[in-house]
């Protein structure tokens, strides 16, 4: 599979939010404002590429040769937590305007399932190095597309009155369902 195909597949046809249900908590909580959603999406994309690459090396060159695959979860999540913390410090110091956009989301990102999931899928699907980079970038991008689209939809919700008992979260879930249905349409695209 060419790299472009991996990016497209992970961003659109197998969108990580809408087909694998990953990163739903922030997807529902932060899609209230478009700016916040875009900031979170950007943060996720940046972090997922960096952490997955680091985890690729950790897995291939440390864990597998030493037969320590069973420690993968804990190594992955520790490196994610560490990298997120380091990124926060760096971005705050050198890119203060960027920090104001997604700085507060960085600590939340550690527990965003997307980040860990991409590292785990990377292991399961046995990607090469560049495949890993492409896959992580595509996944981050796909999640960003999904959350910004959702934020755009929710903006219009302000003018309508959905079923009362559905609540704010409920209607977001219905919207996610409709989006997932729409994304199913892309399925044939890359067959």
């Amino acid at each position: 599979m060419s790299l472009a195909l991996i990016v497209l597949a992970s961003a659109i046809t197998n969108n990580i939010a809408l087909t694998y249900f990953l990163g739903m908590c922030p997807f529902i909580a932060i899609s209230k404002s478009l700016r916040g959603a875009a900031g979170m999406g950007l943060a996720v994309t940046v972090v997922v590429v960096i952490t997955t690459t680091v985890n690729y090396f950790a897995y291939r060159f440390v864990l597998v040769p030493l037969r320590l695959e069973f420690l993968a979860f804990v190594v992955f999540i520790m490196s994610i937590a560490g990298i997120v913390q380091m990124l926060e410090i760096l971005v705050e110091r050198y890119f203060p305007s960027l920090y104001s956009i997604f700085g507060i989301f960085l600590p939340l990102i550690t527990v965003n399932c997307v980040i860990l999931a991409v590292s785990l899928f990377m292991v399961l699907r046995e990607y090469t190095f560049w495949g890993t980079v492409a896959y992580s970038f595509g996944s981050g991008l796909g999640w960003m597309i999904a959350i910004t689209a959702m934020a755009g939809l929710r903006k219009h919700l302000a003018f309508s009155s959905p079923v009362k008992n559905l609540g704010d979260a409920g209607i977001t879930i219905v919207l996610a369902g409709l989006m997932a249905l729409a994304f199913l349409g892309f399925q044939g695209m890359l067959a």
Partner: protein
Amino acid sequence: MTAFVIPLVVMNGIAVIIFALIMLLKTFVASYGSCQLVVNGSKTFTVQGGTYLNKALFENKVYLPSACGGKGTCGFCKVQVTEGIPDPLPVEEILINYKDIRQGFRLSCQTKLRSDISIEIPEELLSIREYRGVIRSSDYVTRDIKRIGIHIDEPKDGLDFKSGQYLMFKVGEGETRGYSIASTERRQDEVQIEVKLIPNGLGSSYLHSLAEGDELTFFGPYGQFYLRDTSHKVICVAGGVGLAPMKPIIFETLLKYPDRDVELYYGVRTFEDLYDHDMFLRLQANHPRFHYFPTLEKLEETVASTYAFTQGFVNKTLAANLTDGDKSEAYLCGPPLMINSSIKELVEKGVPEIRILYDKF
């Protein structure tokens, strides 16, 4: 044996590397030196860069109100930044309106000091201090409201407040909750509050659990809800435990202003929820300028009192008894529903909206 040694080495290696990198970044990248913090153009503090504004102010004994403990959810700690305005964070955009954001209003708990900064805060906040006290009494006045008397130990010159203001009590790590001062007698070294127990409420359950002799820390006094120095008639409208801030207001008016009338409209659900009833009846008998109108939402026949209560909501009593609306000013404290309906009634009676002060909870 190797089955244990290799993973131990690897895992600890990873942990130490991550730790070392974070510490290196913290010391070399996240150090902003020291910054100048100017408050209201008059006070200048030198603070460690990288700390949050609210913490820096706290360390320099400037106490801003806060209910969320610096999580950026209550919006009480808003200040205006005049120089060195930072970019607004998404949290701030939720709690502060667009116009204020542009004028430099920021949440002090979300603003990190990275360079010199000048801020403007209401002058009266500068007089807010930290107090330490010991509980002298804690008694139930109704089945769920406790009156807590506190003796102030620190600072020695005690508390000076305007009638109607509130104090922020430390109720947990980084958590504070506000309660109105309910003292009837003005003393520098004593203060009373009244706390209604709210199931699972952090502040009320903490304060209810304290006993005589327990220590308390609080800040204050806060609030724009206080008795104005005018010659208008004073109308107090209280619902439930909203009676607390009315007591200083009533007593100050009666003592300080020989020609201002005071009317208290006090609404509770049942007779059991009513407190200080006898005190107000006595006060009414002794002071021709004080009028007391208690209202019960539910009137039971077995009530052990000879008083003829009005039944219904406070606004009903207001409608029936209030005169000279245009020469009055009103102080309201209670649940939002009661306040909204009472304000409507007050405006109808001719009280100018600008002279209606309220405190919803």
